[in-house]
């Protein structure tokens, strides 16, 4: 049996219904484990004090926010090439989750920024690229909701997702280039894992895995919702046209 069989709507509904509790359960378990471990059983950082604990929400949400876009890209490509409706709706379902994750990362970052950098916001290249990603999410969602005909909306948003990906990546490089060009002092953001000792690292990996599963569960759930919404759309259209 080909893997595409799972894109058959009925099959998808059946399989996702069975899968959802397991994924959701695993997500809850991992998140709870990672967060409790991180928040309560790690030492305070000698530089950042208590505020280091926000990392267990900040980094996973940022990670998910970025990867949600790539999931949308893949789903859009599948829709364009093979025209599986479930795929189009999965992309649509992922967008608001990605946006919320972006917001969570921005907010936790801002809250963290206050004690660390003395400001809620700085035009650090990484933060900037992240904000731009948020803008792409907004445009994508706005286009979906502006177009009445569902297949046309799926086509157009998929094209936008393709083009948008290229420009989101370009923007990331542009942002790095832009800030470097100003000879501002060293980048404020903590760089890479080597700064973080294992004590912080292990629970972090755990909560990243938890957030990823959470994203998966939410996408499944929202795709199911989108499928029902689409069906509702069809039914009300049918009622109107009858």
């Amino acid at each position, binding site marked *: 049996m080909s893997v595409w069989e799972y*894109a058959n709507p009925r099959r998808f509904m059946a399989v996702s219904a069975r899968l959802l509790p397991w994924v959701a359960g695993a997500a809850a378990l991992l998140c709870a484990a990672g967060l409790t471990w991180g928040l309560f059983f790690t030492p305070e950082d000698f530089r950042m004090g208590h505020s280091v604990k926000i990392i267990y929400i900040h980094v996973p949400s940022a990670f998910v926010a970025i990867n949600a876009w790539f999931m949308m890209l893949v789903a859009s490509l599948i829709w364009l090439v093979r025209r599986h409706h479930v795929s189009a709706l999965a992309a649509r379902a992922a967008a608001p989750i990605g946006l919320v994750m972006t917001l969570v990362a921005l907010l936790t970052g801002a809250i963290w920024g206050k004690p660390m950098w003395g400001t809620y916001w700085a035009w650090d290249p990484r933060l900037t690229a992240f904000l731009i990603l948020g803008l792409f999410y907004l445009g994508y969602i706005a286009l979906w909701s502006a177009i009445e005909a569902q297949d046309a909306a799926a086509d157009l948003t998929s094209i936008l997702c393709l083009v948008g990906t290229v420009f989101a990546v370009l923007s990331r490089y542009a942002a790095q280039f832009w800030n470097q060009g100003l000879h501002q002092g060293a980048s404020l953001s903590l760089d890479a894992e080597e700064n973080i000792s294992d004590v912080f690292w292990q629970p972090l990996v755990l909560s990243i895995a938890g957030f990823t599963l959470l994203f998966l569960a939410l996408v499944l759930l929202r795709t199911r919702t989108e499928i029902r919404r*689409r*069906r509702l759309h069809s039914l009300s259209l049918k009622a109107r046209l009858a």
Partner: protein
Amino acid sequence: MPERPDGFKGIPWYADDPLPHPDALRIKDGMDRVVSELTCCRGEAIVLEGVSFALRGGRALVLRGPNGAGKTTLLRTLAGLTPPVSGAMPDPEGAAYAGHADGLKAQLTVAENLAFWAAIFGTGPAEVEGAIRGFDLAPLRERRAAELSAGQKRRAGLARLLVTGRDLWLLDEPTVSLDRTAVNRFACVMRGHLDAGGAAILATHIDLGIEADELDVAAFAAKREATLRDPFAEAVE
């Protein structure tokens, strides 16, 4: 290409050629243009099912049917603007479409408008002059399209057909707003087009005074239960 699970067999959107349909039929003049088992949709609704007819070169076909029967839908499909859901139809490359909007630019004169379409369709000044003569547009040739009355505008829009040099005309209510003289002129031009081996499909509610076959579109109305492409009909009850 594997069979698509959701039953959608339409044209992929990304095809640049409007209708690279595997069984598209490109038929030479004087031969039949065959439309068979065509299913047409409008917006998200399926409007017509199983449309089949043949059109001989040199003949006109009048689409009949009450308001909302699907005449416009069929014409837009045949023109290659809306991809058909399924079925075979002649290659729209050979067709010229004239709908409710005339495609005239308000700021350009009638002559400029026609010359533009001539350039786009690769014909020349001779065709433009022919079109102006055919629809008696000489007194209006230097008028901006914005300064035309409804019927004059429609005449200029129809003149565009002669400028395309195509041999299948798809006309959606061509005589709207035309007075009696202009309708006669249009019938004349149409007869000339048919005599030269061209063909035409027209949707109209009134009698044009040209000999033509008729097709009642209402006979192909999609069944109630099939009016929508609903990929999730089975998945969610």
